Each structure stands twice: as C-alpha cells, then as structure tokens.
C-alpha cells in the first residue's frame, strides 16, 4: 500500500486555483523531491496534503485512507507532519514547549529530538522567537517529529541558512530518511541537493506536473534539469 497517493488533485485558495491535475504515489518509506521555480505551487502542494487549502477536486489517500475531507489536526494525528517554509515557531512558547505541545506517543521523544539536535537542548528555555534561523529550522523539524509522523512534509528546510547549518541539517535529513521508517516529501530550491537525497522527483510548472520520475535520471541529465527548473 502506498504511503501517500494523490489523484487528479485540483486545489488552491478560495476560488483561486493553484494546483491542477496533480497525481503521484509515494511508497512507504519513500522520499520524493518536489522542484520548480518559486510560485509554481510547491508550498501549496504541501499545504493541500496537510489540509490548509481549498480542495476543489480529486482524491488524497494516506495509507489507503481518503483524507481530503479530514480536518488538519486529524491528519496530523494519523501521522502526517509538516515543517513549513516559514517555520511558524510559536513565539510565546519556549523551545521545549514548542516540542512538547506537539507530542504524540511513539518512538520520537524529547530526548531523541535533543539527541538529533543537541543545539535545541541548550536552548530549551528560550522563547520561540529568541533563537537563530538555523535553530528555528531544527525546532520546526523536531516539532514535526514529536508528533511521530510516518509521512513528513518539508518545505525548503535549508532556505536561508548558513552553510554549516545546512550541513548539520542535511545529515539529520539523511539520517531520518535512511534510518527511520519515515516517508518524506521534500520541497527544495536547491534542486541538486534535493535530488541527491530522494528516490523520485516531481517538477511543477504553473501548478501542473512537468516531470515525474526517478531523481537519479534528472540528476544525470543537467540539460533537462535546467530546462525544467530554470526556463
């Protein structure tokens, strides 16, 4: 059974249509890169899976169960976790509270998240808005993990971070994808990085699928990648 399967999805905000004819399948423990220039609907795709957009047509199935009609929090409780592009750390909560507020029973505990991101343990008493961008990103990932998802939606987790932090996050990401039984949908501007850590890729253009296939194929064909992602 597929972890996630979308068929003929049409979605947007209110009557605005952003996504059209979106269809793909993500196998259990699979990793999918979503590429494309900005504004093509990548963030909207994640928001649609999470339930934050207006769903116009099609179907979304999570582990064989249709979820398109479920409220956001139900999807989270089933096992869908979101790391939003804007991070959306809760500023009036401490770092630790940002994590504990999302707790659901499972393998991931406070201790394991602190083990993955030791930096967060040092900052546990700080308010959510008193930490650096890189730490916010770690916190956003850690917070999603605290909900013990089987499907993790990550929106540009490397955006705007210093190279050294990118390195740390990439390692954590690799660890998550390889060692943990997590399926990941990774939206990323850094196309080559994203293709490097995923098995399959989706390129969007104007809200439609322009490419769907193995990541390796795209990585091996720079000409094609350029055409798809740049112009």
């Amino acid at each position: 059974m597929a972890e996630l399967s979308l068929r003929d999805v049409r979605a947007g905000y209110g009557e605005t249509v952003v996504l059209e004819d979106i269809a793909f399948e993500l196998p259990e423990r699979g990793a999918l890169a979503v590429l494309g220039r900005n504004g093509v609907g990548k963030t909207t795709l994640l928001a649609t899976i999470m339930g934050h957009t207006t769903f116009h047509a099609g179907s979304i199935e999570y582990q064989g169960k249709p979820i398109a009609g479920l409220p956001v929090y139900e999807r989270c409780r089933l096992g869908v976790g979101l790391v939003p592009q804007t991070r959306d750390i809760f500023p009036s909560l401490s770092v630790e509270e940002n994590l504990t507020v999302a707790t659901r029973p499972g393998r991931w505990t406070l201790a394991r998240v602190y083990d993955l991101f030791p930096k967060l343990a040092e900052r546990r008493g700080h308010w959510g808005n008193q930490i650096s961008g890189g730490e916010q990103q770690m916190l956003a990932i850690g917070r999603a993990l605290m909900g013990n998802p089987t499907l993790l939606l990550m929106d540009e987790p490397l955006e705007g971070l210093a190279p050294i932090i990118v390195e740390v996050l990439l390692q954590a990401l690799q660890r998550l994808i390889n060692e943990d039984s997590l399926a990941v949908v990774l939206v990323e501007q850094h196309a080559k990085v994203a293709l490097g850590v995923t098995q399959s890729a989706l390129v969007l253009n104007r809200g439609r699928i322009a490419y769907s296939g193995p990541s390796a194929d795209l990585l091996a064909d720079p000409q094609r990648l350029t055409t798809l992602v740049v112009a």
Partner: protein
Amino acid sequence: MSAAALETRGLCKSFGALTVADDINFRLETGARHALIGPNGAGKTTFVNMLTGALPPSSGRIVLGGEDITAMGQAKRVKRGLGRTFQINALFRRLAVIDNVALAVAERRGVARRMLRAASTHADVCAESMDLLATLGLAEDASVRIVDLPYGKQRLVEIAIALGLKPRVLLLDEPAAGVPSLESHRILQVLDNLPKHIAILIIEHDMDLVFRFARRITVMVQGEVLVEGPPEEIAKDRRVHQVYLGEQHHG
C-alpha cells in the same frame, strides 16, 4: 540620457538588522517591457511596496518621470501616473465590474468626491470605463458583480482598474497568478495589447510569460540586483542558473 519613466537610486530597506533591499539602482525606460524575477525572499515585494509608497525606504531615492517621489504618499504617486495591480485580487467584490473600473476613472478625473449629481450621469466617466472594458473584452460583463465573475476575468478587471488610472508606469504583480492554465492565454493577449507608451514592470514567476513579454529582465537575489539584461543574455547567464538550481556558491 533622457529621464527614465521610473528610477531608483541607492534604494535600501532594512528591518532592524535584516536588510531586504540593498542599494538597488533600477531604471525603467519610457515604454519599457521589463520583468523583475528572483527566488522567494529575494525582496521583490519589498521593492514594489517601496515604489508604490506602501513602505518607506531606509535610504535612497525614487524618481518618477524626473520628479523625486521618495517622500510622497501612495495616493499622490497614483496621481503622478504610477499604477499597480495586485497579485491576489484586490477588487470591490460586491460591486459591478463597471463600478470597479469607474471608481478608478472617477478618482483620476477628480470627480469622485462630488455628491450632487448621480454617478451614472457622469457620462464621461461611464463612457471611458466602458471603452476600457471593451478593449479588455469585458464589455458584456459590465453589470456583473465581481463575486459572480469567473476568476480569470477577475484578473482582467484587476488590470482594467489600473489602466483606468491612465498610468505612465504600470507595475503588474503576477498578473496570471491563480488562473487555471487553460484560461491564461487571455491574460497574455491583454498584456500584449497594452498601450505602447506605458512603461511596464512585471513581477512574475512564469518564465514562459516573462520571456515572451519582457524585453529586459532584472534578476534579484537576497535584496540585491544580481544581473540585468535582455532575455537572451539572462537565459544564458550562469549565475541565474545557480540561483534557480541551488548549486552551492563557492567563492
């Protein structure tokens, strides 16, 4: 060098320690077809907001047709010929299409404050608004309320309102955003037929549209102008590829 339609000199904007626009020197020629592109967070929106007067710059100057408008309010800039459209429809939703456009026309003609004669007896305003709608192919929808209008046509009304201001400079903020792809050709048509004397700056993600429409492209990255040139050059530029493919910069 003759005066540009719109020009910025050393424009900067920072929020605290965060710099979102850094020394932007930008020139929009009279009658230009110019595009502004760049990845998310490049500072395009900040730049546009400074141009329209929604956001005051930290330093630098904005010059419209030779006149310094840096300290001018939004409404005054509009009167000087600076029009804009919005990325997300900003329409008068429960008013008819004609009223949406006529509000702008009346404002420009300076009759919007009058209260003794009925609006519909201002024949000049009505006629001009109808003409404008006709050129955009919206004449039949004149009395339809925006809420009852298909989204694609709403995007056209967005442009019609801006044109009602008879701008010398028009800023188009993602004119085709949110339109199903089958309907977007109509918007391209309209853009192609815009009056030649208006200098147009388009902010757009859709590269097909950008390369078809623009004769000059500016690429912004992290609050700075990365490169500027004609489309052929931009398409070949290695730095642009890097920005969009996310190859790590080394040195």
